[in-house]
């Protein structure tokens, strides 16, 4: 099999205050996959995400991105390859205009002038926000800001897009628009989420992180319909949602 885009081996991490968040995580994500990372609050999902681009390091185990180990000497390259979209777009959008914000990442990589302009417009175009290039981020709707946050990362041409709770705080229309955008992108996706219907809609494969270890890895349908597994890890389907009915209606 080809080199996985993301290869996490035996990753363990304890915060400086002694709280151990990860106890040996193993995870492989291959080119073109869309994987949902599920788990209850406090399972270590965010800690894992922060290891993927080397914000947190120093525990045991290793993270490799398309063959490049996440280590201090490779940080710039790793951060280009792994695009993290954080949960609160106001944390991600810190420049004065949408255009400047999308330009921030590629400009850090040394892209300039017309090439930079092309990257910015192309990334905004992929999320349907090209008309907003000169707007200050604060005046956009929440859904629009989330989409721009995705564009800021797409502009770096990442090999894997890591999304932290992409559907949180979105109204149903924005949630669907974002799903359309994500399914249309030709990029590997790892999506941290509590939104199980969203996981089923977007990600063929799901893994469950619970108490700092991966406890399940399989097709999203199989994971969501394994009632014993789900309840053992504080995962619950929302009221009225049945993956079996969804599969039946998709098939029929």
């Amino acid at each position, binding site marked *: 099999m080809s080199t996985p885009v993301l290869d996490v081996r035996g990753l363990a991490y304890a915060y400086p205050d002694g709280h151990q968040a990860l106890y040996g995580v193993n995870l492989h994500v291959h080119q073109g996959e869309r994987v949902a990372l599920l788990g209850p609050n406090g399972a270590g999902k965010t800690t894992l995400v*922060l290891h993927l*681009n080397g*914000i947190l390091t120093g525990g045991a185990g290793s993270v490799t991105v398309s063959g490049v180990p996440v280590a201090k000497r490779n940080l*710039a390259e790793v*951060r*280009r390859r792994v*695009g*993290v979209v*954080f949960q*609160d777009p*106001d*944390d*991600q959008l*810190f*420049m*004065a*205009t949408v*255009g*400047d914000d999308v*330009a*921030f*990442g590629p*400009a*850090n*990589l040394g892209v*300039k*002038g*017309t090439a*930079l*302009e092309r990257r*910015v417009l192309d990334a905004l175009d992929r999320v349907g926000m090209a008309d907003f*290039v*000169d*707007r*200050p*981020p*604060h*005046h956009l709707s929440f859904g629009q800001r989330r989409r721009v946050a995705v564009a*800021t*990362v797409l502009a*770096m041409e990442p090999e894997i897009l890591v999304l932290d709770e992409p559907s949180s705080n979105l109204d149903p229309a924005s949630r669907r628009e974002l799903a359309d955008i994500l399914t249309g992108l030709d990029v590997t996706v790892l999506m941290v989420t509590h939104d199980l219907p969203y996981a089923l809609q977007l990600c063929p494969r799901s893994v469950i992180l619970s108490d700092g270890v991966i406890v399940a890895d399989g097709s999203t349908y199989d994971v969501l319909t394994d009632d014993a597994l789900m309840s053992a890890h504080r995962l619950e389907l929302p009221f009225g949602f049945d993956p079996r009915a969804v599969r039946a209606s998709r098939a029929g």
Partner: protein
Amino acid sequence: MGAGHGHKLHYHGHSPVHRLPAHVKILTLLGFMLVVVATPRDWYLAYAGYLGLVLAVVWVSRVPASYLLKRMVVEVPFVVFALLMPFIATGTSTQVLGLSVSESGLMSAWALLAKGTLGVLASLTLAATTEPRDLLAGLERMRVPNLLVQIMGFMIRYLDVVTDEMHRMKVARESRGFTARNVRHWPVLARSAGALFIRSYERGERVHLAMLSRGYTGTLPDTRRSSRR
């Protein structure tokens, strides 16, 4: 600039004052203010001249007077202080409208009002005719240290975010029946301010993480693209 006129102090327009490069405007304002402050307070004609000059600039900029007047309320605390001065200051007293007031206090009040008003009016004119991001670019061209410009940029970006947060905290307080009516309520306000500070600090840390994630190495990269600015 497409629709980028969202800031509360900025009045969108295309007058010569709007088009002037930001660093020229900043330096002009700075020079003007130094001259005003250095002018002896009994040169009344000079002050009339200064006011005329500022009003002329406002007229050329086509920013409505009412727009500027409304924003001049920031000066109110100084006005109150200035009005108190003739009554508090000591020295030879004189009669004004049947009241006995201090002569030196009266002069100080006049000087404070005149210089303050000119300063506020001139600064508001600058703010009304210059986009915040152009102001920052102007400061950068004036070789203001990059770190200071970055800090100001973040301030402009997050001012609204923090103000919104403050407003939500106020709504939450009032929803539970609290309104600050007198001094005894101040401790609650102080705790809110503390909570706001912590939240903003944590946001700062998250923003920093987001910056690092996109390859930030300590200096803001040049995000200018060929066909703009």
